[in-house]
């Protein structure tokens, strides 16, 4: 009989950044393995690490507003269903939550927005896909068609996400990464990265059409769809400048589309 050794950490690597989630609860670690399949990579020393304390179900709700602020140099992340604290100096923190994948998912999103803000990147309310070695991002609010467009993706396109796109600036330009942050598709994206070719702002309409747009409108579109939670003037300014830098360097266009596969003929 083979007995698997107990472990105490799941390392989740998204956008080239690994976050170790430590817990003694094997069922919770198994839940993370399933939730983040494709993004679990064992690391000798993850970039960031959180100790999870599993609490009994309480009165807090995931529908409560999230708060992210700094106190005594430590980030405090709070919502009805979790409370986390993170020291950016030691890159270590703690999370208190119930055994569910949604609370940790939100904590991961927040941590990545904070880390990316200092590195010239951000998360966008956007679907994204890689085609012919190039990444395309499709930004829009709920109902704009992110999941619809992802479902219509042809076989030669790899969907990076149907909900939260990961964009970061690297040597040579901007890159999009796959994320496990899924929307209605309820499926993690492909764990790939590719140079960002174009950002489309989505509109559903009567025809398939790509239109150019002015840089100010493009900037408004990008900023409207940027995820950022922290009550922190310095990081808000950093994200603002990153978003406008992207608009200067990467084409941003309006994509009006009908829910049909032919729309992908415009995305090459």
């Amino acid at each position, binding site marked *: 009989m083979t007995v698997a050794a107990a472990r105490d950490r799941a390392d989740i690597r998204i956008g080239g950044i690994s976050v170790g989630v430590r817990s003694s609860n094997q069922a919770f670690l198994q839940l993370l393995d399933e939730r983040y399949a494709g993004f679990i990579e064992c690391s000798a020393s993850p970039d960031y690490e959180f100790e999870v304390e599993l609490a009994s179900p309480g009165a807090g709700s995931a529908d409560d507003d999230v708060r992210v602020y700094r106190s005594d140099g430590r980030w405090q992340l709070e919502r009805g269903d979790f409370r986390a604290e993170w020291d950016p100096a030691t890159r270590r923190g703690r999370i208190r939550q119930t055994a569910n994948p949604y609370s940790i998912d939100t904590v991961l999103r927040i941590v990545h927005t904070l880390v990316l803000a200092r590195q010239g990147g951000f998360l966008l309310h956007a679907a994204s896909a890689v085609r012919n070695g190039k990444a395309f991002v499709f930004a829009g609010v709920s109902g704009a068609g992110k999941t619809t467009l992802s479902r219509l993706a042809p076989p030669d396109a790899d969907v990076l996400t149907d909900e939260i796109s990961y964009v970061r600036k690297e040597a040579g330009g901007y890159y999009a990464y796959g994320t496990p942050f899924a929307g209605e598709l309820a499926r993690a994206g492909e764990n790939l990265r590719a140079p960002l070719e174009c950002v489309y702002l989505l509109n559903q309409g009567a025809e398939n059409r790509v239109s150019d747009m*002015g*840089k*100010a*409108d*493009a*900037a*408004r579109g990008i*900023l*409207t769809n940027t995820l*950022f939670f922290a009550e*922190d*003037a*310095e990081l*808000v*300014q*950093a994200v*603002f*400048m990153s978003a*406008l830098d992207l*608009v*200067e360097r990467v084409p941003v266009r309006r994509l009006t589309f009908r829910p049909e596969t032919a729309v992908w003929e415009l995305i090459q």
Partner: protein
Amino acid sequence: MSTNRYVARANNVAARMIGGEMMIMSGADSSLYSLNETASILWQAADGVTPLAQIVEKHICGDYAVDPAMALRDAEELSEELARHGILLLSDDPLPDSGPPSKASP
């Protein structure tokens, strides 16, 4: 209204000209603002030490065919509006310690 009023960009904002518009984001609450051409001129000249009347005379009346009194009145209304949003400081005295936001670029 006083003609010796002074305006300065708030420190906790990020601002950048893009596509002919001055886009400004408040660091306090992430609110996004965009200014038209003449408002952008006022914003860029708001150094805290040049009187508003002088900014209007030099940067707006000099380049646009407008009535100076009306231009100043419009500038004061705009300044008060931006001050209400917390992205511009407005004072009857110079604001020498204020200045452009550290990460702003024209």
